[in-house]
Every structure is written in structure tokens, then in C-alpha cells.
């Protein structure tokens, strides 16, 4: 495998090129993913036509359900918020050459930890203190969980892609065990959950804007991580390691520490996503925490080419697709896996489009004659 090949920083990312070449490169990074999206839409339309459904109706419902009304926008942003965080959990390790696909585990355990700490604290401390404790604990647990995959990669050469996904399955088992066993609220009959954190303690959307706090936090973290990866020595060292671990080691860079830190940052992001799910959506921890945000985040990160800033619009796009799922299901009688299949089609086409980089005439610098 060459995880670094897929995840490596853009060629020329370390060395600054001329303005013209840079512009052409930037154009390439926008044009090729857009082209891949268009190709996926065409392929999916053919698929729908073959099954006797109207692609026209499908995509107009997709638009209406995701972005057409104020209500659908609220729904979209609510789903986009955890996607920003889980995509960052893929994008940051990708910069150091690791392919982490188990963000779901950190989401689940982060949410569980947040709900667990709220049990003794709720009602005894002010809401802000409670939410602060929940967020810090969720981020720490997530950081430890994905950081473990990074540590095992460094210390024991364990493939991080497989180990992170195994850890996700284990995390879901821990969640199910805990909410049905030791932390079960006796009042939750048909849907085992932890005791509620209390309606008065739950996070409302940002007043006036109706934007979830989780999205605001996600955007702030994305900007922060972008600066960290592009403007600091830490980020530079991480990118060097991602490009060529052997060279980084020869240069005396603390490769192990960089790997563990990058994976811990990733886990903290995903853990926070779990915190927001508990604090703003569910009000407790239950099996619904494993809603697949961790997995969709993988796709978002790849489509954003592991750029923390680009993660935000892509997450909103996929939040919209997810939000429209219910409408499409009801109006067209398609199964709920339709959205999953559309996402997977985008994913496959997108990865195949990697082959186009550097091969299209229009994006090539003209060599002076």
C-alpha cells in the first residue's frame, strides 16, 4: 500500500511555485473534483433510468430536500456539522500519510463519555461548566481512541486503516453494553439510553442565525487546523513525514510523536462531533450515536483532498444529500440506501479521477519555447 500516495500533500505543496503554475494547480484541484461529481451524477442518472425512475425528479428532490427551503437548510446544516468534524478526523492524519477510517468509534465514545460525565454533574453545576466538561472529556476520549491507532502504527507497525476500523467496532460494542447495562436510564424503555442531560442544558442553535453551534465550532477548528498544518513548524514536519517518512526520520524529525499527535487531533475532532450530537441533538447517549457520520466523513475528506478549509463546503453538500434522503424515500419509493449508493458512486468516481491529475493539457504550464 501507499497510503502516502493517496494522502500525500499536493505535489509542489512544499515548494512554492510561480504564481501562474499555482493558479493552474488550484484550478486543477477544483475542476477535476467537480468533473468527478458531474460524472457520478450522470452514472447515477443512468442507473435510475435503468430502474425506471426519473433522474430529473431525483435531483430536483435532492435540491429541494437539501437546499430548497429554510427548513431543509436547517436540516442540512445540522447534518453537515458532525461531517466537518469527522472529515477533519480523516484529513489531518492523511497529511502525515495515514488513512484513518474509524472516526465513527471516536464519535461514539466521545458522545458516550460526554453523556456519562453529565450524569453526576447535571443539575449541580452551571450549564456552561457542564457543557465545557462534557466537550473536554469527549475530545480527550476521542483523541485517546484514534491516537491509539496512531501509536500502534508507530510502535508496532499495525496497519492504521484496519486497526482504526476494528476500534470503531469495539467502540460500538462498548456503547451498546454501557447504555443497556451500567448507565441505562431505567426510564428509557424501548430505546435504551443514558439518563438525559436535561433539556435546560442542551445546546440551542446560534440565536438569530439558526446555525448549529457544532457547525460554528467545526468551521473554527477547520480554520485553526488549516493554519496549524500550513503555517507552523509542526504542520511542515507532519507534511514532510507524510511525503517521505524515511527522509523525515533521517532528518531527525520525531516521526512517532508527530504521528500520535496527528491521530490524537483527529480523534479529538471526531470525539467533539459525538459531544455535539449528545448536547444538541439527542440529549443522551444511545445507539443512534453510531449514525454513520464517521464513515461519510471519509468521503468528505477525500473529496476535499484533505484540505481542512475545503472540508466545510463539501460537508455542507453531503449534509444536504443526507437531509434529502427522507424526502426522496417518501416521494419516489426508493430504499433508504439510495443516498448511500449515490455517495459510494461519488467516492469511486472521485478516486478514479485521481488519475487525471497532471495529465490534462489545459492545466499544464506551457514550457517556454
Amino acid at each position, binding site marked *: *500500500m*501507499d*497510503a502516502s*500516495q*493517496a494522502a500525500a500533500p499536493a505535489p509542489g505543496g512544499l515548494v512554492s511555485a510561480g504564481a501562474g503554475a499555482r493558479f493552474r494547480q488550484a484550478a486543477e484541484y477544483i475542476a477535476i473534483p467537480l468533473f468527478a461529481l458531474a460524472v457520478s451524477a450522470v452514472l447515477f442518472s443512468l442507473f435510475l433510468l435503468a430502474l425506471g425512475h426519473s433522474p430529473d425528479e431525483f435531483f430536483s428532490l435532492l435540491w429541494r430536500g437539501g437546499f430548497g427551503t429554510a427548513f431543509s437548510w436547517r436540516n442540512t446544516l445540522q447534518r453537515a456539522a458532525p461531517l466537518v468534524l469527522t472529515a477533519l478526523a480523516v484529513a489531518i492524519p492523511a497529511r502525515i500519510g495515514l*488513512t484513518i*477510517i474509524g472516526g465513527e468509534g471516536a464519535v461514539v465514545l466521545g458522545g458516550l463519555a460526554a453523556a456519562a460525565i453529565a450524569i453526576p454533574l447535571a443539575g449541580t453545576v452551571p450549564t456552561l461548566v457542564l457543557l465545557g466538561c462534557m466537550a473536554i472529556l469527549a475530545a480527550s476520549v476521542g483523541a485517546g481512541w484514534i491516537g491509539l491507532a496512531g501509536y*500502534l502504527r508507530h*510502535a*508496532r*507497525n*499495525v*496497519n492504521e*486503516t*484496519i*486497526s482504526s*476500523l*476494528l*476500534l470503531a*467496532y*469495539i467502540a460500538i*460494542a*462498548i456503547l*451498546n*453494553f454501557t447504555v*443497556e447495562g451500567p448507565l441505562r436510564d431505567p426510564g428509557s424503555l424501548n430505546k435504551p439510553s443514558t439518563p438525559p442531560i436535561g433539556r435546560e442544558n442542551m445546546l440551542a442553535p446560534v440565536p438569530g442565525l439558526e446555525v448549529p453551534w457544532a457547525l460554528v465550532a467545526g468551521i473554527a477548528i477547520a480554520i485553526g487546523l488549516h493554519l496549524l498544518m500550513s503555517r507552523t513548524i509542526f504542520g511542515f514536519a507532519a507534511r514532510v513525514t507524510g511525503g517521505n*517518512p524515511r527522509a523525515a526520520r533521517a532528518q531527525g524529525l520525531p516521526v512517532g510523536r508527530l504521528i500520535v499527535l496527528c491521530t490524537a487531533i483527529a480523534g479529538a475532532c471526531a470525539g467533539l462531533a459525538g459531544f455535539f450530537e449528545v448536547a444538541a441533538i439527542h440529549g443522551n447517549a444511545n445507539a443512534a450515536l453510531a449514525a454513520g457520520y464517521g*464513515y461519510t466523513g*471519509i*468521503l468528505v475528506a*477525500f473529496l476535499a483532498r484533505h484540505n481542512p478549509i475545503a472540508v466545510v463546503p463539501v460537508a455542507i453538500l453531503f449534509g444536504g444529500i443526507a437531509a434529502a434522503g427522507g424526502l426522496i424515500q417518501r416521494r419516489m419509493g426508493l*430504499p*433508504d*440506501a*439510495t443516498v*448511500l*449508493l449515490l*455517495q*459510494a*458512486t461519488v*467516492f*469511486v468516481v*472521485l*478516486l*478514479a479521477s*485521481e*488519475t487525471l*491529475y*497532471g495529465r490534462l493539457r489545459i492545466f499544464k504550464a506551457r514550457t517556454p519555447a
Partner: protein
Amino acid sequence: MSDIATLATVLFAMIGGAIRVSTPFLFVSLGECVTEKAGRINLGLEGTLVLGAMAAYMVAYETGDPWLGVLAAGCAGLILGVMHATLCSLPRVNDVAIGIALMSFGTGLAFFFGKPYIQPQAPRLPSVELGGWIGNAQLAEALTINPLFFIGVALAFFLRWAFDNTRYGLLLRMAGDSVAASRAMGVSVDGVRLAATAAGGFLSGIGGAFLSLYYPGSWNEALSSGQGLMAVALVIFARWDPQRCFYAAMLFGAAGALGPALQSVGIVKGYYFFNAAPYILTLLIMIGAGRDGKAARAMPSELGVQR
């Protein structure tokens, strides 16, 4: 019930369970082993397993013949394998990432077309009763074995022999160990890898058919939870040796059978943890094998699973 009788019950349930649970592991790991021997890693076999399970169930239900279902599962896997190989042969396309994408593609396709088949009951695969003469009902139950298990075991030993002793085995290993050598011999590396990935997909699809047509023996969206992925880890543990894949699959099967076996004697506490046993076992094995020189030497050189 006395302690010894309880222990015997658990033990017999585990033997039977290990044979049942190991079969999908065996098929997927053999498929992955063939693919990786040719120098490519296919992480998408989890998706292949799920799609195979759905295809098998659908065809078995529609035609009434479970063996046609097995064939359909193999073909579905074959198609995904061909997709993987074709996409990976494009320059700059990463096989691990394509595997992750095909994992969700296979699962998505299976859930999309499998929705109407969650309720109806398809005919199950027949089984062979080996323990009828013993006179112990529990042991007889444990020795009621599906023919696919025997096919898988035979295949493991055959593949081991074929890798070492046939022309095709040599071509496969050469594609996995040295692209340069293959090219020098005038062999198309992409062609060999296409065949290997397609064959790997076929075998994984059959593993899926076992899940939906024999044990657990129904189709639902929670049918496979990581077996396909664990099988990939299992190949590393088995050091790319099909015969060891068989032993490793039995071990994983026993771990997977632990939860249900304990449940059968009424131990339900920590049910989720016993069900998580295979994941924990896989992780521990990977940690143990991590710095193992033997595993590193056995790895096909063109493969970078463990850089």
C-alpha cells in the same frame, strides 16, 4: 446442570460454532490471499461479502435453488473484483482508497437491492451430518457441517500447493514480488492482478453466500459486521499462506462462537463484549505480528501493507 455438563455444552457449541463462523472468514481470507499474492490489497472485500450475501439470498429465493445463489454471489464478487482491478490499473490510483470506496459501494448496492428480501425466507443450503453415529445430540449438532466448509478447506490446501507447484502460482507470486521480473518475462502484471483480484472477489462473494444461506441464514443489513475486514488482517497473521489462513480462520471462528456458546448456557452478561471478541482478537494479533520478522519476510514485496 453439573459444571462438567455445562462445560461440555459450551465446548461443543464452540466447536460447532467455530466451524460455522469460520467458513466466511476462510473464503474471504483465501480470496484476499490470492489478491495480495499478486501484489495488490483489496480492502473492499467487506463490501463484496455483503453484496455476495444479498445476491445469494435474492437468487436462492427467486429460483428456489440455494446453489444457484452461491454461484450468483461468486459472480457479484467477481464483478466487484474486476472493478477494483480495473480502477487500480489506472496510474496514480491508490488500491487502499479504492478498496474503502468499493466497501461502501458494495454495501450500498446490497442494501439498495436487498430491501425487499429482508422479510421472505429463502431456501437454505443443505448440510452434512457427520455425528449421527455418536449418540450425543450436542456433538451431532456440532458436527452438522455445510459442504462449503469442506470446499473451503480443500481449496486452502490446493492453493498452497498451487502457489508452489504450478505455472499460474509462479506467475502470481512473481507479479507480487517483482514487477520488473514479470515485465522481463513478458508477463502483463496488470493482467495477472486482474485475474487474481477477480478470483479473490469470487471467493469472497461465496463467503457472503454462506452468511445469508446457511449461518446465520437470513438476509438483513446487519448481517456482516467487519468479517470481510478482519479477514484482511487475518491474511497478514497467516503470513500469506493459504494453509495458515485455514488455521487462522478456525481461531477466529472460535472467537466468534464464544458469545453465542455462552448464551446457550444462559450467560448473557457482557454479551456485547463477547461479540466484540473477534475484533479484539484481530487487534491483538496485529499488535503481536507487528514487529514479527517472519511476517515481514513472507510479505509479497510489491505489497506495502506494512510499510
